[in-house]
């Protein structure tokens, strides 16, 4: 039995369908990602799984408990870190954990030890008695993670865990999640619109767009499922008629798409295609205004399956964190 079983789950708000018949399973010990742009339905989906809203159709079982029939049993077995920071700003880090330990009926004799261990594992022990409003965004997020684990759940849900954090804090949160997953034998389901987060952190990724599940597999297999190992992005001046066909005819080119005067060329051999591209441009007396070569990303996967880019891709390009994080 999988830890999380979702069958044809749907949520409608009036005439609007936010989640449309999504099905997937999450096995024990996985880090499972729901990747998609803002408004794709990820948060709605995770809220149904965490009993915050009721599905319109379909079922979901968490640890064998139905989210509609047995919500109390579901709540007892999961930890949830919502997108909004839910820690009380006027209470200290320790006080926040204490309140939630009581809400989860953690026995008195275990509470103190649990809180101390959690603060150590999220590296907030020095800030235990400081008001949460004095903590940075990254520290507050780490506290939220600790709060979600105060009752030792086996399944952890995180809704956009690193949204709004600086690059260093994001990497710190990733490392923390990986460490906690190993230490506590956790199953983690997280939603994100950051492709690097899904790529680095998740064992499997489900791509969600407009409420539908469009692809599901490991990041590696998803990237391998689309044409080309490399993506060349180039813009030209001028762009004559037929130039798209010319690019398609270059050696090793598997696919070309044009969007806003930028050509995205999927190639099986990036360096060779680059050379041929430069030569073809020179022959046609076309100036290459910009050219970049990169390996296939989940953004390319998203574009392949949906025809659009993840909206934050341009933003993410400013914060390349790949060199900072080593996936274990």
């Amino acid at each position: 039995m999988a830890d999380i079983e979702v069958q044809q789950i749907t949520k409608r708000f009036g005439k609007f369908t936010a989640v449309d018949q999504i099905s997937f399973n999450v096995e024990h010990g996985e880090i499972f990602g729901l990747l998609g742009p803002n408004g794709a339905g990820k948060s709605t989906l995770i809220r149904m799984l965490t009993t915050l809203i009721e599905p319109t159709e379909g079922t979901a079982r968490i640890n064998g408990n139905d989210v509609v029939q047995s919500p109390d049993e579901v709540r007892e077995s999961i930890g949830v870190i919502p997108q909004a920071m839910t820690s009380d700003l006027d209470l200290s880090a320790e006080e926040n954990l204490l309140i939630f330990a009581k809400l989860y009926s953690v026995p008195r004799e275990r509470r103190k030890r649990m809180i101390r261990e959690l603060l150590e594992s999220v590296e907030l022990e020095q800030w235990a008695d400081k008001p949460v409003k004095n903590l940075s965004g990254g520290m507050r997020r780490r506290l939220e993670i600790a709060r979600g684990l105060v009752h030792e759940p086996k399944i952890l849900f995180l809704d956009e865990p690193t949204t709004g954090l600086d690059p260093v804090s994001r990497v710190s949160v990733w490392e923390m999640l990986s460490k906690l997953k190993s230490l506590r034998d956790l199953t983690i389901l997280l939603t994100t619109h950051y492709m690097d987060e899904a790529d680095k952190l998740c064992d499997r990724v489900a791509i969600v767009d407009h409420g539908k599940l469009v692809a599901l597999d490991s990041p590696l297999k998803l990237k391998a499922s689309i044409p080309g190992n490399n993506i060349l992005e180039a813009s030209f001046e001028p762009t004559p008629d037929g130039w798209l066909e010319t690019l398609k005819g270059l050696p090793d080119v598997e696919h070309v798409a044009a969007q806003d005067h930028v050509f995205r060329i999927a190639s099986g051999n990036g360096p060779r295609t680059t050379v041929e591209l430069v030569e073809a441009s020179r022959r046609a007396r076309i100036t290459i205004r910009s050219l970049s070569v990169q390996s296939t990303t989940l953004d390319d996967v998203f574009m392949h399956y949906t025809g659009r880019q993840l909206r934050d891709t341009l933003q993410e390009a400013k914060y390349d964190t790949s060199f900072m994080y080593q996936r274990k």
Partner: protein
Amino acid sequence: MNRIWALIERDLRRFRRSPTLIVVSMVFPLVQLIVLGYAFGGKIKHLRVGVVDQDHGVPALKLREMLGAVTVNAATFEAVNYSDPHQAMADLRNGRLNGVLNIPPLFSRNQLAQTAPDVALIEDNTDQFVSSTLEGTLTSMVSAYNTHQTSAGIQPRVEPRATLDVVEVYPYVPYIQYLLPGSITLSVFMMVMIGGGIIFIDDKARGLHEGYLVTPVTKFELIMGFNLAGAIKAILAGLVLMTIGSVIAGIPDPFAPLRILRLFVMIVATALALISMMFLLMVRVNDPLVPRATFGVLNTLLFFPSGAVYPQQAFPGWMRAIAVVDPFTYAVHAFKNLLLKNTGMGAIGFDLAYLVGFSALSMAAATLLFKRTL
């Protein structure tokens, strides 16, 4: 200048898109105008005067007839006949009567003997507006009794010379003491509003409640937790104001243990009634602007009709109807009895029962409306 206009435009666009703010900014002053306009200076009517006729002679009967005429016509007071003077006094002390008119056993004989027949008005002087109205009306009535007897064109065989002796049951009550019960109730209400309503909605808007909803806490536990937390804060506010206010206002013997205990019970009942009312009003509200916007309107609608600053007997019918259901009314009435008259629980039993029942009903309704999901 363009930049100034840009800032003005931005604010006005936002204002236009906030119907709550627009409505309340118009409604609140209107509510204040109407409520305050009718809350002060009205003619006091429908007081309750116990009549103890220990004489039963013809002069006494004539006097009682005049009382009946005032009841029917001017309606300043309603005359309630008592055969037992002790019961009348007990009801006076317990707040069921505003005054007792005692016609002594020898009134008729003294009238015939022309030896200064007098009737006694024993009045509850804790409300100066009421007591001066009663005094004035009954003085006029006795004067009319004396004049009537002589103005019929027939020379009476005996000149009527009845006099009204006014006896005040309690020591002089300055206005600050009169206001204290309303202020205690107001302090409880303000803490309920700020420490309960506003903070509750602010936390909801910030997403804090989402953190609680994913835990195993039940709907009942959530409601009880929020309400008891708000009630405790309100009780503390009420106790502080009761203590400090009693000293400032010069309440005699303010720290008598029994009185403190009774006051504490009433403060608890008031806090529970007001927090449950607040919770019922806010249970489906998500906009932080709503509790702030309604604070002033609620304050006006609840405080002034309660009789905290002016007797309810002077209010028009619609305001007296508000007063009947207003929990403030019963809290203020109970605090007045306890602080100004030092009565026992018997005098405030109904007030206590109403507040408890009000709390239970409000809480039941709020529980039905409260959503355990987003």
